[in-house]
């Protein structure tokens, strides 16, 4: 379990952060898809959380400058990004009720470590360490490649949530335009882990013992080695009595489960790897190709999915009008900045190495005292801090999106 270095995230610290470090321009480029403000930005809802949990909804802005000015004057502890509405959100009251509807919105996903509490052994609840981050890393790899492969989306931005989870924002035009019904369908396609605490078997995705649907077969491949490294070796999930009882509940053949139970009761010292091998050798004793064997093999695949497949918070993704914390906000408890994360390097990401707001301001002070005090404005002071690679990443992402929009506009022009 990690020791969180909770520094004082005071209003003064936040104000300095917004004034000198927060990359407003990059954020606007990213949600606007173009350099000049369009409805994607001007009709977009922002919701600000102020001190003492005052929640200010339906804010919207015309320009980057206004956006920054308003944030600096209200100095929220954090703010969220919502949908693009048919009418400017601040005009909600004067608009006819039917005329105020969400039109577009990034397709978003939220993965949170708390959903892994039943399978991780290293930390609990709010805690997170490099070891349990491996669950998130596995989820990111699976989700990132599934969405690209099956839905064909290209503009995926992964953002650390500041504490123990990660968000995914998909900005492809088709994804922005999805209806709630279609978002619900995508969630149904992706979500595999179902049922609460009191449900042993949380994976029910096949008909009888028929093969897995192709998308899950594809997801399974990288999860098999991950199961070995993470679940068996690192987390040692089946070490404790409760841990291996959970496993036995998932074995459809009661005889085999009983044989294993007796064996493991007698021998306290068997590791998770040993136990998984025990299960495998019991399965090998059954006749090849027999229904028992087929169902046990299917059960093993389902177990691997249950322990390693992405666990998403379905409600976040289903509705266009859901609000999600903006990238680069500061988590009020940890002081860490919600930075974008490269899915290719997700295994190397260490949540404890993410810069905190206090650390960034210190870096900045050092630069400013060593250099001369130039202008009063600090538009891109982040360039002088360890926030730079993260902002650069968002800029590259926004650039690719803007290129895409330019290209499709040109194609539309030519088609006239």
């Amino acid at each position, binding site marked *: 379990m990690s020791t969180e270095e909770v520094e004082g995230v005071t209003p003064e610290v936040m104000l300095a952060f917004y004034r000198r470090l927060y990359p407003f321009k990059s954020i606007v480029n990213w949600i606007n898809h173009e350099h000049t403000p369009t409805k994607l930005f001007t009709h977009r809802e922002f919701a600000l959380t102020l001190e003492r949990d005052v929640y200010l909804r339906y804010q919207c802005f015309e320009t980057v400058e206004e956006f920054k000015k308003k944030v600096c004057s209200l100095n929220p502890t954090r703010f969220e990004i919502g949908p693009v509405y048919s009418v400017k959100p601040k005009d909600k009251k004067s608009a006819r009720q039917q005329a105020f509807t969400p039109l577009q919105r990034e397709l978003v996903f939220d993965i949170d470590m708390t959903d892994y509490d039943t399978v991780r052994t290293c930390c609990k609840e709010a805690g997170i360490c490099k070891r349990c981050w491996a669950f998130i890393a596995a989820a990111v790899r699976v989700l990132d490649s599934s969405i690209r492969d*099956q839905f064909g989306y290209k503009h995926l931005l992964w953002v650390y949530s500041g504490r123990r989870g990660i968000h995914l924002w998909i900005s492809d035009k*088709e994804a922005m335009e999805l209806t709630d019904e279609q978002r619900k369908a995508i969630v149904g*396609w992706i979500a595999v882990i179902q049922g609460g605490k009191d449900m042993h078997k949380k994976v029910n995705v096949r008909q009888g013992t028929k093969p897995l649907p*192709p998308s899950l077969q594809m997801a399974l491949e990288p999860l098999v080695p991950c199961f070995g490294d993470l679940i068996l070796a690192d987390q040692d999930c089946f070490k404790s009595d409760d841990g291996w009882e959970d496993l036995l509940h998932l074995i459809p053949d009661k005889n085999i489960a009983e044989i294993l139970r007796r064996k493991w009761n007698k021998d306290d010292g068997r590791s998770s790897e040993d136990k998984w091998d025990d299960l495998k050798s019991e399965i090998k004793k059954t006749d090849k190709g027999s229904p028992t064997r087929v169902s046990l093999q299917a059960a093993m695949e389902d177990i691997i999915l249950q322990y390693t497949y992405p666990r998403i918070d379905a409600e976040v993704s289903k509705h266009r009008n859901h609000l999600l914390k903006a990238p680069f906000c500061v988590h009020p408890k940890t002081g860490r900045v919600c930075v974008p994360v490269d899915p290719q390097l997700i295994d190397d990401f260490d949540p404890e190495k993410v810069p905190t707001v206090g650390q960034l301001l210190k870096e900045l002070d050092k630069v400013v005292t060593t250099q001369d005090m130039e202008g009063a404005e600090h538009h891109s002071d982040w360039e002088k801090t360890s926030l730079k690679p993260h902002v650069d990443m968002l800029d590259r992402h926004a650039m690719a999106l803007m290129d895409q929009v330019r290209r499709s506009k040109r194609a539309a022009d030519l088609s006239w």
Partner: protein
Amino acid sequence: MFSNRERAAFSDGTVKREGQVYKHSTLKYPHRLNFYDRPPLEDVTIEEFETCAIDRLRILAEIESSFVRNRSFEELKTVTNAQCLKYLPLHSSTATSEDLEGERRKDHLGHFILRLAFCRSEELRRRFVKAEITLFRVRYESDDTKEREEFLSSRDFDWIAVDKDEKEKFRRELLAASPNLKAELFEKEKFYKVKWTRVPDLVEKRRVFLKGGWAYVPSREQSSIIFQAFQSSLERALEATARALPRLDEDTRIMPILNNLSQGFLAGVPSEWSGNDGSSANGEAIKAEMIDDLARKHFPLCMKNLHDNLRRDRHMKHYGRLQYGLFLKVLGLSIEEAIAFWRKSFSKITEDKFNKEYRYNVRHSYGLEGKRANYAAKSCQQILMNDQPGPGDSHGCPYRHFSEDNLQSALLAAYSHQGLTSSDLPEIMHAVKSQHYHVACTRVFEITHAGSGVGTVKKGEGVGGGESVTHPNQYAARSRELEKAKIESLGGNDDVPMKGEEGGGDAMVLG
């Protein structure tokens, strides 16, 4: 979207000779199924406008109550087909003896008129789309296979047939995505590619193979593409109609009809129960002194409530008298009996006062005074929507106008002698809370007429053939019919005493 021309056609109401529109019929509606891509262009009379709409509305309202009553799709199909046969038949092209062109025209017209009525709020649009797509699905499934293929090929669904090479390339995935497809039948199975957003239902259940945003749909799941296409084109069309509708306000004859229609969706379609002239359908006249007994056994809650109020207060306010009086008239109470009934009921007042203030009223409602109109009894829709009861009033629909606790006690007080118990209340209250008052009333009818054998009703049968209650007189008439059937089956004689209290006072003659 309606062009100016057909808006004009809808709104000018010129009377055309019947028959004229049937010309060139064989070309106009070649298919039984209709995607309603094109609005009707010919002139329509105002009467036809209304009939087409109301008959379709009956079907849609019944589909909606099927959802509320949690019928399975198979049950819903049976009920809907029976209703369609009655109000909106649509025969296959091979049925030569039918007026196919007329049926299809009515279907076409009715759909477009209801679009006008239901485009006006998001809630109505959502409900209309859901009911229409269900109707389409019921018809699609009962369509002749060959005719259905012809219909499908007449329209571009924008799907791409997956060629042999691609099919072979994804053989393993395609088979795994449809577990019910046997490997040996794979060669024969056709697959179609569509953007995945066109088949969200299949995606949600992982019943297709997805690659790069394309869904590979096996031909057995093709109907999903069709239903989805029907739904999204209807949704788009309704939104467009909603934007154009304000222009229709000009026509003063159309708007009241449209308003009525959308209310009908909320309250069920009114049945006509006005034709009675003082004697009930089966010839037996009703006497004033029979009403207590009839109320106990056969009245819906609204009328029972009025009756009990009248007995308790020995008086009743205007709208209550109107609602109850017309109901009794249609039930079969003659003018003489009606005068006797009201006179006796208003026992607090003098003969003189009654003659001055109320006799005229009663005679008026029988069409014997004033403009001598033959007033119909109020339908559920009218009771629900018009003349909202004020604080001292007892008219209205108890399911809508009572508070929840009062409604529950009223139900138990009124019907526990007919078998309703407090364990029935949650189901009834559920319908009430979702504002499906006629569904609640229908369910009470079913519960109070449950049992086995002749003269009883099973859950889901409603007031016959699955129909919901839409008129208090329909409720009472059906209840009396059931009792009659029961008595006849027991002995063929009205005088046979029934078990328990069902016999009523005059049943002891057999002795």
